[in-house]
């Protein structure tokens, strides 16, 4: 098996390669900033969940390079199709972090759903692989209109088992749509290891059957993720169709805050991967390059902390959603009669106190008091 594309060395055995020539020092630092924002968001979300201020949360600690790298390769007009794992990607496109946090707090409506066209970010997709045909369709439409707009969509290793994945791959390659399918192979789908998910040694070879170009990169390396996506987008914009990218990494954290990986894997392995995590590794690389000094780095961290702290405050200041939220926008054309009747019925009943997200959730001991699911 060929080694995945890697640019950032690990400071020990793996050598550094020069950053892609298209990237200025400013770009390199901007990418660092994105990683820091994503990391700060994620760590904060986990702690909010532990404090009972969010519901179950799907953390992505260690996978930030697979979010920020591809995003930075995109034009601002390109569309993004994230899953729950890339839940905060919209923040890098101007979505309020408070909105994403509110979504995890169980808020819908304007509190928890963002404006997708304004940000060119599709709603966070929960059912595995079901958003992939949408990314194909959107970019196909853009191609028909000659707009030079591409779609970038994420999927997990597990998602490659779903029919929708294969249907999306096929449509994309038949119609040569400007689509990038960015597959984060973190080696786990909840408790199922990728080796039980597929009999192929790699995921990238799936694209052979669709006559689609494929690239395999180090998913802990933000520059490798950037470079592969850039190459794919250039090809897409030139009219040469879709690309499948496999970013090999590891799900260092749990599947979600209700999951306990000790039940199904050796956590020593996860610890070994922790050393490869993308943020520290990129920072060390930038410092070896002389592109980032300590002051700059600490300013970036402070800024991210302030941004997320403000978002948390904003989320907590949101009014608890009223009952109308159930009935608004179910139909774009307004409320049909049954919905009006439903709202009237609900308003005639005294409302009980606000729902709080459940607090800390024991992963290992599914006690009677804990009806929470493990899946996200």
């Amino acid at each position, binding site marked *: 098996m060929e080694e995945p594309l890697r640019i950032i060395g690990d400071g020990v055995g793996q050598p550094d390669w020069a950053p892609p020539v298209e990237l200025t020092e400013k770009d390199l630092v901007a990418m660092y900033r994105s990683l820091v924002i994503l990391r700060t968001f994620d760590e904060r979300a986990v702690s909010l969940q532990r404090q009972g201020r969010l519901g179950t949360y799907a953390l992505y600690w260690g996978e930030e390079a697979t979010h920020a790298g591809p995003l930075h390769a995109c034009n601002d007009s390109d569309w993004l199709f994230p899953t729950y794992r890339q839940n905060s990607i919209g923040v890098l496109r101007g979505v309020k972090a408070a909105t994403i946090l509110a979504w995890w707090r169980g808020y819908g409506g304007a509190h928890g759903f963002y404006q997708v066209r304004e940000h060119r970010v599709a709603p*966070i997709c929960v059912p595995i692989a079901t958003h992939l045909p949408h990314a194909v369709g959107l970019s196909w439409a853009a191609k028909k209109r000659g707009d030079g707009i591409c779609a970038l969509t994420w999927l997990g290793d597990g998602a490659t088992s779903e*029919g929708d994945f294969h249907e999306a791959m096929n449509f994309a390659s038949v119609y040569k749509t400007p689509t990038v399918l960015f597959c984060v192979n973190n080696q786990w*789908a909840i408790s199922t290891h990728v080796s039980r998910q*597929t009999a192929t040694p790699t995921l990238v070879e799936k694209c052979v059957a669709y006559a689609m170009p494929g690239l395999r990169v180090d998913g802990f390396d933000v520059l490798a993720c950037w470079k592969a996506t850039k190459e794919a987008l250039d090809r897409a914009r030139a009219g040469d169709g879709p690309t499948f990218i496999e970013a090999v990494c590891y799900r260092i954290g749990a599947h979600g805050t209700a999951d306990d990986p000790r039940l199904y894997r050796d956590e020593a392995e996860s610890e070994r991967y922790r050393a490869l995590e993308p943020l520290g590794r990129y920072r060390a690389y930038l410092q070896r390059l002389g592109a980032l000094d300590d002051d700059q780095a600490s300013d970036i961290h402070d800024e991210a902390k302030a941004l997320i702290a403000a978002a948390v405050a904003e989320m907590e200041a949101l009014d608890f959603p009223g009952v109308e939220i159930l009935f608004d926008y179910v139909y774009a054309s307004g409320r049909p009669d049954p919905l009006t009747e*439903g709202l009237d019925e609900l308003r005639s*009943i005294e409302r009980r106190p606000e729902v709080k997200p459940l607090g800390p959730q024991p992963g290992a001991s599914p006690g009677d008091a804990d*009806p929470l699911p493990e899946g996200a």
Partner: protein
Amino acid sequence: MPRLNMVEGLNLALDQAMAQDDRVLVMGEDVARTGGVFRVTAGLLDKYGEERVIDTPLSEAGIVGAAIGMALYGLLPVVEIQFDTFVYPAFEQIVVHAARYAWRTRGEVPASIVIRIPFGGGVRAPELHSDSPEALFVHVPGLKVVCPTTPALARDLLLAAISHPDPVIFMEPKRIYRTGRDEVPEKAPLLLPEADGEATQLLSRARVARPGEDLVMFSYGSTVVSCCEAAQKLQDERGVSARVVDLVSLYPLDVESITGAASECGRAIVVHEAPRTAGLGAEVSSLIHERVMLDLEAPVGRVTGFDVPFPQFANEDDYIPSIDRIAAGAVKVLDF
């Protein structure tokens, strides 16, 4: 007699079925190593091994389709769909194939599979983990649809479903998975593989969850529990004696029990969490009106989920029929 919650009751049923009959196997996403996200299949891998307790790839159509093929060969697969909403990718396998195999082979090879689906809200789950899709399956000829409400019933029904020749959609109300404990007799109520008749009986009977005579509430799943509480509230506040009938079998409906209870009480409501339009409430209500209208003092009422997508969890208590809403619905019928 062990006191079990519903998860443990279901687990016991699977264990007993697998011990009795080596054709029974369990498959689904994350069911083997972790024992399923709700732990219903916990411990089975160690007991029965990888050939019979299978972590599948992430593919609901594959899971159900492969189960149909195994059933054709004579095995008895019990598959788990991880959450309600994730059954939709398998919809075509269920509707087109599982439901029609008996018919298309003139009874020669029914698709004898059980599809377990944890369903419904109330556990503060993230978006798209709380649907109640049962009416979609009730509408498909060829499928049996059942829903247990107590741990003991869960054990017995699951065993019955496994030994039953028709495909069974086994709806598990996840909100009450762990909320109550029951004495579950260790002795299985029926033995594989020759339990067809008994199983069919078990799978088609409603049960009285609370006695009463002034009004009857028909429900199934977790709202049965809410109905019992609403009935208590009516008793306390108005001195009304409300009966609660747990439908248990959603297809076929236990027509005799339903019409009998409606006739005896003269007033009825139907309660479910799923959206109202074309839900089970519509079916139960028209059944009663068609058969025993002259015994009624008031039209049958409905207290249901709304015709809206299941909301984000902060609002799920607004959506799920609450005790207050159920009681108000009952009062409307009482005051008619």
